[in-house]
């Protein structure tokens, strides 16, 4: 039998033992808290504004002449959740390689940011986008067209990366 004598309750004073002042104190604290500002946010109306360090949906950087990606496949290799699929193709332009297929399966993505960390071309970055709702599994597999985001929308993140990473 492992019950020890209840030492702590002996240390309580008489007023603490009869419990009535404790109830009064508890109610007082309840009323006090009623007039304090609320901590929660009513979400769909008030949205969270993420800092540049936030790791949201991974996107591809789109410049005026096209995407930066050269389809080296490093992001696909490092991805711990195996969410990225890259199939390379070649052209005659200055940048010889480009991804024929670039898919990110958002059902698998764990937002670790490793793809962004290893990319040698600064082509894939984590955006500030955190509202990800899909109505079917097929919608969640994002093709290249949906992943490309103009570079001007990603300036915050790119600057943060250059400064702190």
């Amino acid at each position, binding site marked *: *039998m*492992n*019950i*020890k*004598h*209840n*030492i*702590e*309750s002996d240390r*309580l004073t008489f007023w*603490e*033992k009869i*419990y009535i002042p*404790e109830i009064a104190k*508890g109610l007082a*604290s309840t009323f006090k808290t009623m007039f304090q500002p609320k*901590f929660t946010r009513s979400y769909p109306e008030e949205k969270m504004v*993420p*800092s540049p*360090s*936030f*790791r949201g949906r991974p996107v591809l950087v789109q410049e005026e002449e096209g995407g930066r990606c050269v389809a*080296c496949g*490093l992001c696909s*290799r*490092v991805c*711990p959740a195996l969410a990225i699929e890259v199939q390379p193709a070649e052209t005659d332009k200055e940048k010889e390689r480009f991804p024929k297929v670039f898919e990110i399966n958002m059902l698998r993505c*764990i*937002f*670790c*940011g*490793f793809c962004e*960390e*290893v990319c*040698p*071309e*600064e082509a894939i970055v*984590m955006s500030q986008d955190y509202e990800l709702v899909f109505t079917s599994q097929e919608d969640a597999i994002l093709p290249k067209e949906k992943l490309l985001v103009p570079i001007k929308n990603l300036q915050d993140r790119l600057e943060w*990366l*250059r*400064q*702190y*990473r």
Partner: protein
Amino acid sequence: MNVTSKSQIEEINRIRNHKLYKELMSQDVSLYMNDALENDLILNMGPQHPATHGVLRVVLRLDGETIINAVPELGYLHRGYEKLAENATYHEFIPHTDRLDYISPMSNNVAIALAIENALGIEAPPRAQWIRTLVAEMARISSHLMAIGSTCLDLGAMTVFLWTFIEREKLYDLFQEICGARFTTSYSRIGGVANDIPDNVINGIRKWLDEFPALLKKAEALVDRNRIFIDRMAGVGYLSKERAIALGASGPTLRGSGVPRDLRKDNPYLVYEQIDFNIITLNDGDTLARYMVRVKEMYESAKILHQILDKLPQGEVKLNQPKKVLPNKSEIYTKMEELIHDFMLINYGAAPEKGETYTAIESPKGELGFFIVSDGTGQPWKLKIHSPSATNLQTLSEMARGSMIADMVVIIGSVDPIMGEADK
């Protein structure tokens, strides 16, 4: 062996239950059987019980309301992380550690990074070490806030839970500022940390830290002189000093029984040698002692954080050793050599020497260790996780024996098991 047919599954279940009940019946029963009408009752608590903090199943053998024996059964959240590690490079395994002890991912990241660095024979630069200490202590506070909040919630004191959650929420906002994610941080890297902490975030941490002890005091004062709370906590789930050591407990479970063991002092890692703090021990060995150890440790952590913020040095946050540590991004973009190293490190991984290393840190739950057996390639041959929750849960039957069934909830809460870590 491939389990395919239904009869095989039934056979496995039969063997498992047989083992469980054998364990359960090991105690002498005649002592408790005063009345011929009394019969023992076998009761399953969990795995879907809200007070078991996840999917812990405890099989209880009851005599009336008294627990004669309790056997915890683990494994309902087994995801095979030790096996997964064998098929991933060391770098790839870092996000997996977020999901071990999912209440304090930051300290898990620090633990795995230290373990890999120990195997590789490298050391992170000073600023990275200090930043790691900073985030590990913040993780300790957030974990203990959760632990004391949920213990109080199990007893019906909902306000404490909500108030500690507000503080935890503020900490998670700070984690998001530091590394970009609230929960699955993946912040530490081999040879440093993922990114530097901006100065405005350091100021944010300082601002939070100035307010924190007063707010904790306020939340603590809700219950610390409450008669119902103390009656339900004090004297319940007693674990003696000798048994705690014998069963391999660690962390607050061990220190609550009066054993001053803390790896931060006993085997200093990171920069704990340069920091002044005390180990909290209480001698009562009951659930209240373990609860109070957690509360007091938070004040100590706040003290440590103040010292870290004052002493935080400037400099690099990642080691410059391109054969083992990922190079900086600006160098990858401009230099050929670093680009090649980037590709090599990701494809083949940083390879430690052939051999075995064990590295442990004092995580919020206790001693969290990683035992790495390397065969000289970029992937571990074996990666054993010594998780504090699994060892602490072994003390459960010792604590539960002889107490009332209603105390079981408090006892589980005081051990603070995280099943993601216990089942791996």
